[in-house]
C-alpha cells in the first residue's frame, strides 16, 4: 500500500493498521511555514536519540531553500548517518518494528526513515553454553549488528562478504549469509540463498528454524550443521572455507557444511599445542565410541556371548547380578533412562535446586538402587561411563545423535546379541556414509579418504605444517601467508 501524501492521513492509517497499539508515538510539528510529522514505536526506539537529534533538527529546519523540494530539505537536515526512504506501509512497519523513526511531510509519497534503535540486548558476554579454558571468551548476542561486527573485527578482509535475506512472512527476520568470497565456491552460497528464499514460514525465531528447514532433505539425527555462539569458531570455519549463517535475534549462528570430525573438535583446539590437542581429540573419539557402544556391548556379552568374557570377570559379574530381578536389557535401559531424566531435569532446573538433585541422583538412584537389589553395580558403572563419555562433546546435537543411536544399538544387542550389535553397526556406518551437506560427504576426510585433510581431523599437526585448507571444502587450498617466513622476520 502506497503512502498517502498527507501527514494526518498517514498517522491515521498507521494507527488503524496497528490497532492503536500503545507503543506508537506520533508527533506533528507545525511551524509557521511548514508541517512535519514523525512516528516511532517507543518500545524499540531510543527516546534520547529522537529528542536530541531528530526533534531538534526538525524544529530548527533551515529556512533557506537549498533543495528543490521540502522533502529533500528535511531529509538532508537531520543529524543522523543512517537515512533511508520508503514508500509503502509494509516497509514502513518493517522499519518501525526494527526501531527506526519515520518522518513524513505533506505532498510527498515517500517517507524518510532514520535509525533510532534502542539496543535491546544484553551486550557481549561470556559464552555460557560453550565454555573453554583458553581463548577468546566473547560470544554472539541477540543483536544482529553486533554479531556481524564480532566477525568483521576478526577478519578485516574485503573478501569477507555478507549477503542478507529476509525470511519469515510475519517475523521478517534478517538472515545473513557470510563467507569469504575467494575461498568459498559461489555455487554453495547460491544454493544456500536459494534454500533460504524457498523457506515459506510465518516466523523465524531462532537459527534452529533455519537449520531444520535446510537439513530437511536428508533425515538424520546426526547434525550436518554446526551451531555455535562463539565468534572465534565461526571465523575459523570461515577461514577454512565454510559458510556461516547469522540469524537475527539469536546468539547461535550456523556453520555449514559440517562433517563428523568437526564435532570431535573444540574451538580451543586452535589455541593449544598440537600434540596436546591430538591427544584430546583421540580421547574424544574414544569417548564417542564408548558413549555409543558400551551399554549394547555389555548387554550382548551378558546375555548371549558369555564365552568372550574372561572367567574372573565373568564370575565377578555373575555374583553382582545375582538377585537382580530384571533382565540385563531392562536393567540397562532403566538406568540409561534415569540418567536422561536427570540430565533433562538438570538443564531446566534453576541453579538453586542443583544440589538437591545431586543428592537424588548420586545417592538415592545410585547407591540405594544397588542396595535394594534393583540393579547390579556394574550396570551403574556402564551407564556412568557412557554418560560421562557423551558429555565431553562440545556440541549438544552430537550428544543427542549419539544418545538415539545408542538406544538402537541396545535394541539390536538385546534381541540378537553380538550379531544384532554388528548389524546395527553396519547400518550405522551405511547411514553416516550416505549423509552429505553442500556436496561434502559426512565422513570426509576418512571416506572418501583425503590424506591432506587428515592433518586436521582426528589429530592436528603443528601449525607450520597446516598451510592448507581442508581440500574437501574448497579448491583454493593454499592459505595466505607463511607462518615459517614470518618467524624469520
Amino acid at each position, binding site marked *: 500500500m502506497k503512502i498517502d501524501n498527507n501527514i494526518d492521513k498517514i498517522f491515521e492509517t498507521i494507527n488503524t493498521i496497528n490497532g492503536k497499539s500503545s507503543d506508537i508515538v506520533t508527533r506533528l510539528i507545525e511551524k509557521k511555514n511548514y508541517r512535519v510529522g514523525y512516528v516511532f514505536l517507543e518500545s524499540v526506539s531510543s527516546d534520547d536519540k529522537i529528542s536530541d537529534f531528530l526533534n531538534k533538527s526538525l524544529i530548527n529546519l533551515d529556512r533557506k531553500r537549498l533543495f528543490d523540494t521540502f522533502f529533500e530539505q528535511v531529509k538532508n537536515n537531520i543529524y543522523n548517518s543512517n537515512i533511508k526512504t520508503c514508500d509503502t506501509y509494509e516497509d514502513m512497519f518493517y522499519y518501525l518494528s526494527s526501531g527506526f523513526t519515520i518522518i513524513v511531510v505533506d505532498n510527498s509519497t515517500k517517507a524518510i526513515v532514520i535509525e533510532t534503535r534502542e539496543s535491546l540486548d544484553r551486550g557481549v558476554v561470556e559464552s555460557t553454553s560453550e565454555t573453554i579454558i583458553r581463548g577468546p571468551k566473547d560470544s554472539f548476542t541477540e543483536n544482529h549488528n553486533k554479531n556481524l561486527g564480532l566477525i568483521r573485527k576478526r577478519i578485516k578482509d574485503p573478501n569477507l562478504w555478507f549477503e542478507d535475506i529476509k525470511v519469515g512472512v510475519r517475523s521478517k527476520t534478517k538472515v545473513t549469509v557470510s563467507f569469504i568470497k575467494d575461498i568459498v565456491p559461489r555455487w554453495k552460497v547460491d544454493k544456500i540463498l536459494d534454500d533460504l528464499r524457498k523457506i515459506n514460514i510465518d516466523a523465524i525465531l531462532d537459527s534452529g528454524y533455519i537449520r531444520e528447514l535446510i537439513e530437511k532433505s536428508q533425515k538424520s539425527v546426526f547434525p550436518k550443521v554446526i551451531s555455535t555462539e562463539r565468534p572465534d569458531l565461526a571465523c575459523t570455519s570461515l577461514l577454512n572455507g565454510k559458510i556461516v549463517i547469522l540469524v537475527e535475534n539469536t546468539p547461535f549462528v550456523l556453520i555449514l557444511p559440517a562433517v563428523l570430525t568437526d564435532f570431535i573438535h573444540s574451538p580451543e583446539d586452535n589455541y593449544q599445542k598440537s600434540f596436546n590437542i591430538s591427544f584430546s581429540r583421540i580421547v574424544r573419539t574414544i569417548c564417542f565410541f564408548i558413549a555409543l557402544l558400551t551399554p549394547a556391548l555389555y548387554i550382548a556379552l*551378558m*546375555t*548371549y556371548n*558369555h*564365552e568372550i*568374557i*574372561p*572367567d*574372573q570377570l*565373568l*564370575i*565377578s*559379574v*555373575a*555374583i*553382582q*547380578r*545375582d*538377585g*537382580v530381578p530384571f*533382565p*540385563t536389557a531392562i536393567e540397562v535401559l532403566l538406568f540409561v533412562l534415569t540418567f536422561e531424566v536427570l540430565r533433562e531435569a538438570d538443564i531446566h532446573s534453576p541453579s538453586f535446586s542443583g544440589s538437591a538433585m545431586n543428592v537424588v541422583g548420586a545417592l538415592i538412584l545410585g547407591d540405594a538402587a544397588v*542396595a535394594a537389589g534393583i540393579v547390579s*553395580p556394574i550396570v551403574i558403572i556402564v551407564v556412568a561411563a557412557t554418560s560421562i563419555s557423551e558429555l565431553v562433546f562440545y556440541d549438544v546435537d552430537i550428544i543427542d545423535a549419539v544418545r538415539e543411536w545408542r538406544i538402537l544399538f541396545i535394541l539390536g544387542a538385546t*534381541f*540378537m*546379541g553380538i550379531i*544384532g550389535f554388528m*548389524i546395527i553397526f553396519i547400518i550405522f556406518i551405511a547411514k553416516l556414509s550416505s549423509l552429505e551437506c553442500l556436496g561434502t560427504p559426512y565422513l570426509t576426510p576418512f571416506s572418501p579418504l583425503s590424506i591432506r585433510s587428515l592433518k586436521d581431523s582426528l589429530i592436528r599437526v603443528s601449525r607450520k605444517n597446516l598451510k592448507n585448507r581442508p581440500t574437501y571444502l574448497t579448491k583454493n587450498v593454499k592459505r595466505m601467508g607463511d607462518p615459517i617466513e614470518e618467524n624469520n622476520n
Partner: protein
Amino acid sequence: MILLTLSGCWNYKELNDYSIVTGIAIDKKDDKYEVSVLISNAPKSSDDNGDSGQSQIVVYTEDGDSLFEALKNIGLISPKELYIGSFTVLVVSEDIAREGLENVVDLFLRYTSARNNFYIAIAKDTKAVNTLKIVTPLTSFPSQNISDNLKSTTDLQGTIAKTSFNELLSILLRDGIDPAINSISVVGDPEKGESKENIESSEPKSYIKIGNLAIFKNDKLVDWTTHDESLGINIVNNMINEMYLTLNYKNGYVVVDTTKFNSNVKTSVENNKPKIEVNVEGEARIIEVRGNINLEDSKLIEELQDKSNKKIKSHVEKAFNLAVKNKSDIFGFGLKFYQNHPKYFKTVKDNWEDVMGEIDLNIKSNLILKTKVSSKNSLEEIHNEKKDY
C-alpha cells in the same frame, strides 16, 4: 528384517541363570565315574553383602556310568544350569589316568561349550575332588589357585610344565610323542582345607602343591618322575626359563641360577641307527655359596661350570632312561625323526618304543657361568681373610 526379528532372542541366557564352573575333577568310584564340579559364583552369605566380586564356592559331586551322565546328574543338584564355558582346571585322579585319558579328552573335545585352553593336572596320592575343595587365602577360588600356580611356576621352576587341553590334544593325536603332565597333591588334611578357617589362619592347615611330572604312554599314565627326571624332561623339551642347580663342592655347595636357558634337539640317522644330539645353551650365575670357596679362582669357576654341565647331562640321561624304561616318548623324539627323516621313521614306526632304547643320545651342555655380577667370594671366605690380618 522380519527374518532377523523372528530369530528373536535365540541363545539368550542371563548370566545369573548359570552356575559358573571353574574347575572339574574326575574320580573313579567302583565301576562308575565320579565327576565333581567347582561352582564359583555362589553369592556370599547375606551378612556381608556389598562385598561384591568375592564369592563362596560350592563343589558338587555325582556319579554315573559315563562321564557325561555324571556331569548331567550334577544338574539335578545344582539349582542353576551349569556353565562349562570358562573352567580353567581339569584334575584327573591317578586311577583314571592309568586307565587312559582318551574318553576324558573325547568328552571335552565334543562338548561344544567347553573352551580348549584349560589346564590338566593329575591328582597324586589324593582324590581329585579334594584338590578343588582346598580354599586358600591368596586366591578367590581353588581352581584359580591351581591354574595361577601352574602358570607362575612354569616360568620360575624348572620341574613344572603346564599342559593345556590343546597341547595335550595335539600330543595325543600325533605319533612319536607322549604327554607328560604335572601332578598336584594336597598337603595336610583335605577336610580342614575345605573350611573357612583355612583362609582365616595365617598358616593354612592344608594347601595344594604342584608336583613333578607324570609320564604317559599314549593316553595312559605309566610312571611318576622324580625332581631330577622332571628337570631333564623339561630341559630337552625347552620348557625352562629359569632353573637352579645345586653343585656339591668340597664340604659345602654352590647354587647356580640359570638365565637365557635354551635347548634344541638334532636328529640324524647313521647306519640305520637313530642318533640324537641335545644342545643345551645358557648362562648361569652363582646365587648361593656355602663353605670355604674362593670364587676369585678362575679354575674353580671352570670346574663349577663343568660340574653344572655334567649335572644337566645327568638329569637328561636320567629322564631318558626313565622314558626308555617305560617305553614312553615324552620328548617327542619319534616326532622329530618323523619330521626330519620320514623314510627312516616309517621303517621303525611300529616298534618305535623299542627302537628308542637304541638311540645314541649325545648331550652337549654349554652352560656359561658368569661371575661378574655377584660378589666374588663367599662371606665365609672374606671372614677368613680378615682373620689373617
